[in-house]
């Protein structure tokens, strides 16, 4: 795993915070600890390919219990009315929105980008695959969520005009 650039990390944090704030009305805080608690058994993931201007992959991992809290807040319905399909759709849309918000912010204004369609799945918490760059966030005091991405160094090279 490579070290996260301060610029990329700041833009990722803004995108995650704005997305969760607007869609789920939940506060998000970045955390340094990269390990999930051992009692996190099942994690839902979403994966999204960035096709242009770089070839990259972003993955969002959310422990099932945390995703229930998030989906409940987005849909404003009781937890027992949340289907697994709703939860999976939520994580896909969250990642799609985070990725778009991040790329809009990090790329020059005249540079377009193209995203793929999100894929989703489940994995045991112990089998989370950490890609080249990884960030962890606490959402509403739930177990931490993990955002992974590749090729972020290439994005930073494209970005020559942004000042934090």
């Amino acid at each position, binding site marked *: 795993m490579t070290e996260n650039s301060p610029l990329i990390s700041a833009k990722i944090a803004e995108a995650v915070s704005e997305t969760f704030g607007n869609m789920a009305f939940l506060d998000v805080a970045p955390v340094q600890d990269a390990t999930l608690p051992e009692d996190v058994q099942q994690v839902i993931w979403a994966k999204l390919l960035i096709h242009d201007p770089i070839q990259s992959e972003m993955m969002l991992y959310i422990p099932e219990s945390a995703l229930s809290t998030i989906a409940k807040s987005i849909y404003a319905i009781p937890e027992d009315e949340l289907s697994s399909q709703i939860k999976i759709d*939520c994580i896909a849309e969250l990642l799609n929105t985070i990725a778009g918000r991040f790329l809009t912010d990090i790329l020059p204004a005249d540079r*377009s980008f193209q995203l793929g369609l999100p894929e989703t799945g489940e994995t045991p918490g112990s089998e989370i695959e950490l890609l080249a760059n990884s960030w962890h966030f606490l959402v509403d005091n739930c177990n931490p969520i993990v955002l992974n991405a590749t090729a972020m160094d290439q994005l930073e090279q494209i970005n020559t005009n942004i000042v934090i």
Partner: protein
Amino acid sequence: MKRVIIADDSATARMFIKRCLEIVGLSDAEFIEAANGKEALEALKAAPADLLVSDLNMPVMDGETLLKWVQASPKLNGIPVIVVTSAGNPAKEAQLKALGARAVLNKPIAPPALMQALEPILNSWGGSDD
């Protein structure tokens, strides 16, 4: 009652857009949800709509193709179209507006931004609620 079509492949996004539209004044509208551009086009052909809100990146038929179809149809090209996208930037926004989109909003949308985009459309409707 106004008829509003929301096209997005994400049920979460459709629900969220619908909620935002209700917040900014369309609480009495009839909402028709479509999972892609083709479904939205079929809904538009089945019955006229007062507003189309569409995502850009969708399977089967994307939002840009949907917008082109709507603008090319004499029966549909008067329907205001708001594009909501996670892949927007000023260049893309200008391109979509040149194709006929009334407004282009970046996700995550917020009710104030939607209200600003919707205001001229609501004004063009006047007091009519037919």
